[in-house]
């Protein structure tokens, strides 16, 4: 056991000390942060006017005179009165427009904005909003409702929250966020199974081609070496994820602070995310990542042991990647639309497909017994693949120059010690 720890330590440290690992830890959250900022900036720039716009109001109705207020880079003036002469005047000036309000302004499309360039959407939205408000309060006054009282009454903001009815009591749900979280988890698991499984495989091939394998397994059993390598690389994966999660939380906190305004979409998004049971999903994510990793890493290790170089891995990689690829495509196309369909349920029970399939379902809160059965199947699954892989591995690592076929692998499996 002590020796397995030594192997884990070596596998872990040699990878974690690599410059590329340390760089990756910082680069990925930084990329996420930069992407967030860019998205935010794009959203903001289409949301707000970038330069000051002056709007000359020509009010024929008299309802709006001096009632506009300057806001969001829009300035209102009431200097001009004649539309025709004003048009001539403004022909050559930028950032100035004319708002023409006819007497019967309630008619559709009767209010007009004139400017050198077509008025931007935020500008016309701002004007529409203000005009609606003014017209609304005019109507109230017309019906003898006290304006002072009106001002003291604040507009109430209402947001609708979707509630699911279930045996456990009503609970908050947000379909969009659920889909997002489920698919994100499935994609992360899918990618990381390949990344870390591949690392295990390359590690095994490296030991085999370096020929150090013989020295090492004269000191430890092949199984101990395989186990140490799998666990070591798995811990590297966990370290990387933890670092990313922590850094992401910190960076979104910082980003949240610097962009915070009560109506910012970031806050809305965070509010939506708060309706999702993060602890539960995180727990499931870590379980399915680890068990899926153990299951596939063992197979990757067996493949590594059977070949002499990475180029020969193709023929064995295909059947390993197939179930994952298959589930991945189903997950992003079909499964999230029907998380309780028989297909989704079955895929989340089969250990080879469960890590991806179940993660899509988890945010929709599948029945507890299904999660339990799926988790048990995962444990049985990785114990099984580890057993099979170990039997192939112990023979494979000492075989050189022999092109392994499936028949050969089966033979190795049945070899006595």
């Amino acid at each position, binding site marked *: 056991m002590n*020796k397995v720890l*030594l*192997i884990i330590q*070596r596998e872990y440290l*040699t990878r974690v000390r690599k410059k590329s690992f340390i760089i990756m830890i910082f680069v990925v959250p930084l990329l996420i942060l930069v992407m967030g900022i860019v998205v935010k900036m794009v959203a903001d720039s289409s949301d707000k006017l970038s330069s000051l716009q002056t709007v000359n109001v020509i009010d024929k109705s008299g309802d709006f005179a001096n009632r506009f207020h300057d806001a969001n880079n829009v300035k209102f003036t009431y200097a001009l009165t004649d539309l025709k002469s004003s048009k001539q005047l403004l022909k050559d000036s930028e950032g100035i427009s004319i708002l023409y309000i006819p007497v019967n302004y309630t008619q559709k499309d009767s209010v007009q904005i004139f400017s050198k360039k077509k008025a931007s959407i935020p500008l016309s939205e701002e004007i529409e909003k203000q005009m609606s408000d003014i017209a609304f309060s005019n109507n109230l006054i017309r019906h003898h409702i006290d304006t002072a009282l009106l001002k003291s009454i604040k507009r109430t903001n209402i947001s609708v929250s979707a509630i699911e009815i279930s045996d456990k009591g009503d609970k908050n749900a947000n379909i969009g966020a659920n889909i997002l979280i489920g698919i994100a988890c499935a994609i992360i698991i899918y990618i990381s199974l390949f990344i870390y499984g591949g690392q295990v495989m390359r590690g095994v091939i*490296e*030991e085999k081609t*370096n*020929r*150090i*394998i*013989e*020295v*090492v*397994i*004269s*000191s*430890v*059993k092949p199984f101990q070496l395989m186990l140490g390598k799998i666990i070591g690389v798995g811990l590297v994966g966990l370290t990387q994820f933890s670092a990313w999660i922590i850094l992401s939380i910190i960076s979104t906190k910082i980003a949240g602070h610097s962009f915070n305004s009560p109506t910012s979409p970031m806050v809305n998004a965070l509010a939506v995310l708060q309706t999702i049971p993060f602890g539960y999903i995180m727990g499931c994510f870590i379980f399915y990542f680890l068990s899926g990793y153990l299951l596939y890493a063992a197979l990757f290790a067996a493949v590594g042991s059977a070949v002499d170089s990475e180029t020969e891995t193709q023929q064995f990689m295909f059947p390993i990647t197939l179930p994952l690829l298959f589930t991945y495509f189903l997950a992003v196309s079909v499964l999230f639309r029907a998380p309780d369909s028989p297909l989704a349920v079955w895929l989340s029970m089969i250990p080879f497909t469960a890590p991806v399939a179940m993660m899509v379902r988890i945010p929709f809160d599948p029945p507890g017994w299904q999660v339990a059965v799926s988790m048990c199947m995962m444990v049985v699954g990785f114990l099984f693949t580890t057993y099979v892989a170990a039997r192939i591995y112990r023979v494979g690592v*000492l075989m050189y120059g022999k092109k392994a076929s499936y028949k050969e692998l089966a*033979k190795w499996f049945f070899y*006595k*010690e």
Partner: protein
Amino acid sequence: MLSIRNIVKQYAGHRALSDVSLEVESGQIFGLLGPNGAGKTSLIRIVNQITAPDSGEIYFNGEKLNQSHIERIGYLPEERGLYKKMEIGEQMIYLARLKGLSRAEAQKRLKFWFEKLEMETWWKKKIEELSKGMQQKAQFVATVLHEPDLIILDEPFSGFDPVNAELIKDEILELNEKGATILFSTHRMESVEELCDAIALIHKSHKILDGKVKHIRNSYRNETYFVEYTGEQIAFDGNQPFELVSETHADDGSHTIKIKLTRENNSNDVLQYLIPKARVNMLQEVIPSMHEIFIEKVNLNSAGHE
């Protein structure tokens, strides 16, 4: 020390070892000889518990070979290899710790060895930065760092330049003097006579010869002698106490003959016969070299098998 009893190892398609038994005594340098593909490496792997035999048993100091003996064996495989990207110092310590040494102890011993073999500056280097010969030296250190009782070396001299091969040979002898038993495989016969106390010859999965080097060579004596004399060339008429195998004559008037004793005669009879006829400069028994015995045995066996 090591008692190998009736080992059989069958691989798919061919038999690597058929009923091989050997005794390696404590403190011996034991040579495992045989042509390529004879089964030497298979046997060495079994002793190292890398693979298990199909049948047969191995005893280490009287105990049945088990995992606890791993720490008392050092193994240098034929195909050398270390982690290319790992620093040497760290790598040596790792390998020693896998053999059960503590970190502090491994570090101390490694310092000693690095000084001894003038490798101090290598500590922080990576294997890929070293030459092949340097890698071999490092690997030898890794093999003996945990001070094993039994050191198993598979083709230890292959890959070394003559200077380093000599250096390693001296180290092996020194370790042997300090009490380590050495088992090594080779197909280089010169090193056998120089180094080995005992040998076993394996050919086509069978052990065809084993024993102490001296005994083996003595048992292959066939009463053949070289004689050098000066004077008139002797005409042998058939009454001499030996058979003439061959003769050569040098320009300086010396003659060399190779003879084989006949009947009950011994070397004294040869001298008695020759002394009246010429001046005898030298009489030397021809003891077959291990190389000759090896070739003879292998050829004989190949013929016998086919």
